[in-house]
C-alpha cells in the first residue's frame, strides 16, 4: 500500500500524523526562503494535531467529531524588531507571503533594545509520550465504550453524560541559528457525569496512554456517588473542614501557575510579589515544576526552544524560585529555566507542569479522621476575586457530602466559596498520594487530595 492509500484508509479508521521529516522539510523551506529574503534571524514552529471526541448525553451519543490540522508559525527578528505570523497554508507561495507579512509587521514597531538574539542549538532530555494504542483508538472503539456506559446507566436508572476523546500531536521547532527540537505525544480523556433525579456526580481521567484508565470503572464511581448525592441537606454557610478530591485541589491550585512567572512578579501582578523567600504557605506544601515527571505530558522545551528545567517553586511553605524565559532571566541576572512562551508576548513565561508533593494519608483515612466536615468532588466556575490575596470564588459541583464522626453522612446542597488559596495552603492538615488530576478549570497537573481546615463557604444554592 502506498503512502497516499495508507493515509486515506487511516482517515476513515484512525488518522495518522505525517512523518516528522515532512515537518522538518516545511521548517527548512521557511528558513531557506527567509534567508533568500535577507532576514537576519528566523524561527519556525510547525504543529500538527489530530483529535477526535465522542460526546454523549441522555444515554446516547449526540456529538461525535474529528479534526486534523497543521499550523506553521514564523517569527522573524531584524534589528531589534520581531513579529509572528501563523498560517495553516503550507505551499511555498503561502509561506513566502507569511514571511513578508511578518517582516512588514515587525518593521512598523519601535526598536526593542532588550530583544535577545535567537538561541542556538540545545540539548534535550528524551521523553516517550507517544502511545500507538492511544493514537489508534477509532470512533467505533470510543462509541462501544460509550455504549457500555449508556447501558450501565440505563440499568441503574441513571442518565449519563460525558466525553471520550483521544488525539495525537507533534511539533517541530527550528531556527536560523541551528536550533532543532521536536516532540510528539498522544492524549486520551474520559469524563462522565451520572445523574439520578436531580442529583449528579462525576469522574474523569486523562492520560497519554488510554490503557491507564478504565472508563467503566469511572462510570461506576460516578454512579455510586450519584446515588449518595440524592436528597441533599441545606447547611448554613460558614467555615468547614473540607476534604478536597484531587480535581478540586487542581482547579484551585492551578490558578497559581502564572504567579510563579518572573515576568508577573516584575510586573507586580503576582501574589508572590514581595513575598519571595517568605514562608507564606504551610510547612507541608512543596511545589515543583517538572516536565519530566512520569505523570506529566508536554514537550521538553519551551516556546523559544530552551530545555525545560525542573524547578522547586515552593519548599516547605517558602516561595523559593520562579520560572524564567530568556528575557526575564537576563533582566534578573539568572539563567532561563525553559518556561518561556513563544515570542513576542507580554506574559513572559509560566510553569506548565506543576507537581504538588503528596503525603501518605488516603482519602478514606482523611474521612475517618474527620469529626465534622465536607467531602468535595469537584469545583466549578472558579474566578479570581482578589489577585494579591489570591481569593477565589466558585461553586462545589456534582457531589458535596457531609462527613460526621468519620463517615459520609449525607449529601449537602452546593456551596459558593470565597477562599484565599494562600490561606488554604496554610491550613492543610493532611495530604494524600499525588496523582495526575484533571478538572475543568486548570490544565492537568499532579496534585494530591487534601484535608483543609477553615475553608470558607459564603452562600448556598438551591440544589
Amino acid at each position: 500500500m502506498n503512502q497516499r492509500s495508507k493515509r486515506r484508509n487511516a482517515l476513515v479508521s484512525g488518522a495518522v500524523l505525517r512523518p516528522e521529516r515532512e515537518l522538518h522539510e516545511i521548517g527548512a523551506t521557511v528558513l531557506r526562503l527567509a534567508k533568500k529574503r535577507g532576514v537576519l534571524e528566523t524561527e519556525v514552529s510547525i504543529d500538527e494535531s489530530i483529535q477526535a471526541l465522542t460526546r454523549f448525553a441522555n444515554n446516547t451519543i449526540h456529538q461525535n467529531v474529528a479534526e486534523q490540522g497543521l499550523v506553521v508559525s514564523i517569527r522573524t527578528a531584524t534589528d531589534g524588531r520581531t513579529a509572528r505570523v501563523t498560517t495553516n497554508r503550507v505551499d511555498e507561495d503561502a509561506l513566502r507571503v507569511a514571511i513578508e507579512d511578518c517582516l512588514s509587521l515587525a518593521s512598523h514597531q519601535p526598536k526593542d533594545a532588550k530583544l535577545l538574539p535567537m538561541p542556538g542549538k540545545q540539548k534535550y532530555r528524551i521523553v516517550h509520550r507517544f502511545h500507538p494504542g492511544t493514537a489508534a483508538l477509532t470512533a467505533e472503539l470510543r462509541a462501544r465504550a460509550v455504549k457500555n456506559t449508556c447501558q450501565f446507566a440505563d440499568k441503574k436508572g441513571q442518565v449519563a453524560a460525558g466525553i471520550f476523546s483521544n488525539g495525537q500531536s507533534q511539533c517541530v521547532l527550528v531556527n536560523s541559528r541551528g536550533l532543532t527540537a521536536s516532540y510528539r505525544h498522544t492524549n486520551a480523556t474520559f469524563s462522565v457525569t451520572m445523574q439520578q433525579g436531580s442529583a449528579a456526580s462525576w469522574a474523569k481521567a486523562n492520560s497519554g496512554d488510554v490503557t491507564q484508565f478504565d472508563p467503566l470503572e469511572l462510570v461506576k464511581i460516578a454512579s455510586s456517588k450519584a446515588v449518595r448525592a440524592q436528597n441533599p441537606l441545606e447547611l448554613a454557610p460558614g467555615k468547614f473542614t473540607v476534604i478536597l478530591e484531587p480535581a478540586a485541589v487542581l482547579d484551585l491550585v492551578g490558578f497559581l501557575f502564572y504567579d510563579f512567572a518572573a515576568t508577573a512578579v516584575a510586573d507586580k501582578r503576582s501574589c508572590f510579589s514581595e513575598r519571595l523567600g517568605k514562608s507564606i504557605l504551610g510547612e507541608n506544601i512543596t511545589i515543583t515544576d517538572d516536565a519530566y515527571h512520569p505523570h506529566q505530558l508536554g514537550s521538553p522545551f519551551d516556546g523559544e526552544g530552551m530545555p525545560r528545567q525542573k524547578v522547586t517553586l515552593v519548599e516547605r511553605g517558602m516561595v523559593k524560585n520562579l520560572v524564567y524565559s530568556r528575557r526575564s532571566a537576563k533582566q534578573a541576572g539568572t539563567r532561563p529555566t525553559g518556561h518561556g512562551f513563544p515570542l513576542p508576548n507580554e506574559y513572559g513565561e509560566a510553569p506548565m507542569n506543576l507537581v504538588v508533593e503528596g503525603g501518605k494519608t488516603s482519602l478514606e483515612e482523611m474521612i475517618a479522621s474527620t469529626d465534622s466536615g465536607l467531602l468535595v468532588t469537584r469545583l466549578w466556575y472558579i474566578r479570581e476575586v482578589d489577585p494579591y490575596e489570591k481569593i477565589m470564588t466558585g461553586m462545589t459541583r456534582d457531589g458535596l457530602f457531609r462527613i460526621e464522626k468519620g463517615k459520609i453522612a449525607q449529601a449537602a446542597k452546593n456551596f459558593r466559596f470565597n477562599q484565599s488559596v494562600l490561606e488554604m495552603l496554610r491550613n492543610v492538615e493532611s495530604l494524600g498520594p499525588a496523582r495526575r488530576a484533571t478538572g475543568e478549570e486548570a490544565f492537568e497537573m499532579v496534585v494530591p487530595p487534601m484535608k483543609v481546615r477553615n475553608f470558607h463557604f459564603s452562600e448556598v444554592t438551591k440544589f
Partner: protein
Amino acid sequence: MWEYCGHSLEIARLRGATYADVRLMHSRQRDLTTKSGCVGTLGQSESIGLGIRVVANGAWGFASTDQLTREGVANCAAQAVAIARSSALAKKENVQLVPEGTYVDSWQGPCLKDPFEIPLEAQLDLLLAVDAEMRKVRGVTLSETDMQFRKIDTWFASSTGSKIHQRRVISGCGIVATAFQGDAIQKRSYPNSFGGQHVLGGYELIESMDLLRHAPRVGEEAVALHSAARCPEKTGTLILGGSQLGLQIHESVGHPIELDRVLGQEANFAGTSFLTLDKLHNLRYASSFVNVVADARPAHGPGLGTFAYDDEGVPAQCIDVIKDGEFHGYLSSRETAHLIGLPRSGGTMRTEGWNRLPMIRMTNISLLPGSWTFENLMADTDDGILMDTNRSWSIDDRRYQFQFSTEIAWEIKGGKRGRMLKNPSYSGITTEFWNSCDAIGNANEWVLWGTPNCGKGQPMQVMGTGHGASPSRFRNVKIGTAFSNQ
C-alpha cells in the same frame, strides 16, 4: 470554495448520508498589545479549512480538514459518515430536524474602515500613546493596551441546496491600568475589562473610543482605589453600569435559555439549567417591565451575535426571551426546536471555526431600554451603591446562584454620587435578582456590549456574544459577600 463544499456534500451523499452541511471558513486575525511602554504581542494569523456535519444511520458525525483539495475534502466527508455510523451504535432515536428553507445568498456585516487596511504604525502609535498616558499617573505600576481584529469568510452549503456566503469583520480594543501598593493590587479598565469592547465592525470602533482622553482617568482611578473605603457588606440598592449588566444578562439569562443545556446535553461540562421545560410561559423571571430579546438581526446593531444566517443556514431572528417579566423563549436549533413544539429553529447554531461543530450559542441577548436617564436614576436613589466594570464572575452549573465583583463602586447618598468604594461585589439568585429590578436606563444609555470570550462545548469553543444594556437599578441585593471572610 463552492467546489470543495459541493464535492464534500456529494461524497457524503454517496457514502450514505441522509443530510449534510458544510462550512468552509477562512479567518484572518491581527493581535496587538503593549505593556508599560513596549510592544507586547505583535502577530497575525490565518486559518482556512472545511468542516462537514452529516447524518447517517440516523446519527451525527462531524469531521474537519485543512486539506483543501478534492481528495482532502472527500476523505473528510467519508470520515464524517464513518463517524456518524459509529455514533449510531449508541443512539436512542434518529436525528430529527425541523424544516428550513433553502437560501442562496451573500451577506457582509457592517465595516466602514477595514482594520487590516489601516497602517499598523497608526495602530501601534495610538496604543503606545495611550499606554504612556496611563503611566504618567504616579502610582500606576503596569499599563496595558490591546487591539484585536478578525475577518471571517464563511461559505455554507447544505444537502438541501442552500449556498450562503457571509463576511464578518470584528474589532476589539481595551486599556488597563494596574496599581500595586502595600498588600493590594487594584486595576481599572476602559471601556470594559477582559479585552475591552468588541463589535461587528471595523476600525471606526477604535476611533469612537477616544482612548487618549480616558487614559489618565483610568490610571487615576486605579491608584485612587487604594485609598478608597471598602465596599460595605449589606443588603441594599444597587445600580449596575451597562457593561456589568451586560455580563449579568449573559450569565443569568443567556446561558440558562440555551436549549441544549436545558435538555441535558451539556450536563458533563457547561452544566444544565434551572429553566426546565415546564417553566416555559410559566415563570415570572423578572419585574413586569423587563424585556429581554435574543436578536441576531443586523437591525439590532453591530453585536458579536449579529449575522444574516446561523451556521446551519437558518436566517437571523429576534426571539422574545423575557416579555413583560414572563419567561417566553429558549435559544433553539433545527434538532431541538420540535422538542418544545416549535415549527422552526430560532437560528442560534454557531461555530467558532471550520474545525468545530455548530452548537446552540447566544446571539445578542439584550435587555431592551427602559425610560430612565442615568441622571434621573441616580437622583431617584436615596441610598445605594453604583458598581461598574467587571472584575470577576461566577455562577452555579444550573444558573441559579451568582456572584460578581466589579473594579470600582461609588456610594449613592441623597441622589448623588458619593465616595469611591473598593472591592465591590454582589450576589444573588437569578430570578430573585431580576424580580428586584425597578428601573432601567433609556435608549440613550443603551450600549450593545460585546463579550468575546464565552466558552462552551467539548472540544471547547470560544464565541463572541452581544448584550445590549443600559444602567439599571435593583433593590434588596446582597452586597459585599466576596470579601466577607477578610
